[in-house]
């Protein structure tokens, strides 16, 4: 094929435009969803949790979480008298099948669902050497599995133990706050499956969200506030013994 100089000069800009669209990649998946209009978090009401494990099973189903790994799990705390600093915690298989009956009914018991706190200043995103984990403009900490090199820095950095290395893909994995659901106007799988309403998805940028009224009128805490992670999973009725 012979191309004159004139033809080549005409072809070059066209090729540049085509290459540009190749580099631009996939377009936005949820066209009506505006990243800047949301700031996601979650409310967990300890006084409502019955330890049924529905959230753990729902999360595994929704997100194909491998067996033995958890994006969310439930802990059962046993605090005997005068032992506030040394609670006994169990979470058999992440409470996927609930909890066995109590062997010792003394002291107090309660359930604490745990998950990624979607920290505003998260240690895990700060240590990632390749920019594979990040916080989205709407406040959700995500992992780009095509970029993750599996170095496990983030798994060590998370003070809440919320990350794991997927044994199949060998990339870091964690709760996405069901990002594929909340961007479509649905709630998360764990909230959808929770029978008592102990978990509530919260949009902190939405002034109409009941979270604001709840935060004003209840004794709400975050886990490990001294670590200044800016955790956005709020716990109601959290006992001082919870780690």
């Amino acid at each position, binding site marked *: 094929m012979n191309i004159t100089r004139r033809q080549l000069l005409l072809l070059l800009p066209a090729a540049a435009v085509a290459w*540009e669209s190749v*580099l*631009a*990649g*996939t*377009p*936005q*998946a*949820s066209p009506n*969803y505006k*990243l800047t209009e949301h700031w996601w978090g979650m409310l967990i009401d300890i*006084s*409502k*949790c*019955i*330890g*049924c*494990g*529905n959230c753990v099973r*729902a999360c595994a*189903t*929704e997100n194909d979480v491998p067996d033995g790994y958890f994006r969310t799990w439930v802990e*059962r705390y046993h605090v005997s008298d005068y032992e506030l600093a040394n609670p006994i915690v169990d979470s058999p298989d992440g409470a996927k099948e*609930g*909890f066995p*009956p*109590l062997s010792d*009914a003394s002291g107090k*018991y*309660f*359930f604490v669902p745990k998950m990624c706190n979607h920290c505003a200043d998260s240690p895990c995103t700060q240590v990632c050497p390749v*920019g*594979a*984990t*990040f*916080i*989205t*403009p709407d406040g959700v900490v*995500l992992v*780009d599995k*095509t*970029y993750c090199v599996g170095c496990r820095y983030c798994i060590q950095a998370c003070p809440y133990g919320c990350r794991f290395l997927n044994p199949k893909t060998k990339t870091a994995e964690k709760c*996405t706050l*069901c*990002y*594929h*659901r909340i*961007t*479509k106007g*649905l*709630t998360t*799988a764990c909230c*959808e*499956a*929770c*029978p*008592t*309403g102990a978990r509530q998805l919260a949009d902190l940028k939405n002034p109409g969200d009941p979270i604001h009224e709840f935060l004003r009128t209840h004794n709400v805490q975050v886990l490990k506030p001294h670590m200044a992670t800016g955790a956005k999973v709020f716990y109601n009725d959290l006992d001082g013994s919870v780690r």
Partner: protein
Amino acid sequence: MTRFKDAEHLLRLALVFAAGAILFIVFRAVLVPRSFGQYGHYRGNAIAEIAAKQPVFAGHQTCESCHTDVLEMKTKGKHAGVNCEACHGALASHADDPTSVQPPKLDTLVLCVRCHAASSAKPKTFPQIAEDHNAGLPCETCHQPHSPQISAEAKR
């Protein structure tokens, strides 16, 4: 003349550096995805890719758009706040194709106990049953799961 005898070496060095810089710019342009840095130090398109996954739980709004009879019964009863898929499991597949994908039949003896088995770890206000409560009978013998409270007439 002797003063600039070695200028050629400097020129070669400069050319090597220039070639290196050009190669770096070209490789960077090709290898770094265009959306990298769009929102921060990460690939902006990753957000849309993660959001593109299809839900497995349909959400109670979807269920209620067809099963209005169940919704009506449920809103009057104690299970008003319990979403459909909390008991029936993830059923987006059924919502997408209601005729060929049928929800599995549930065993109340397994399902109800998951929440209602007595345990002092549960909140005191939550209704709990002892092991001998039902004498081995399935729960739905007496309780309608969508509105579980037994009415005064039925008790007679």
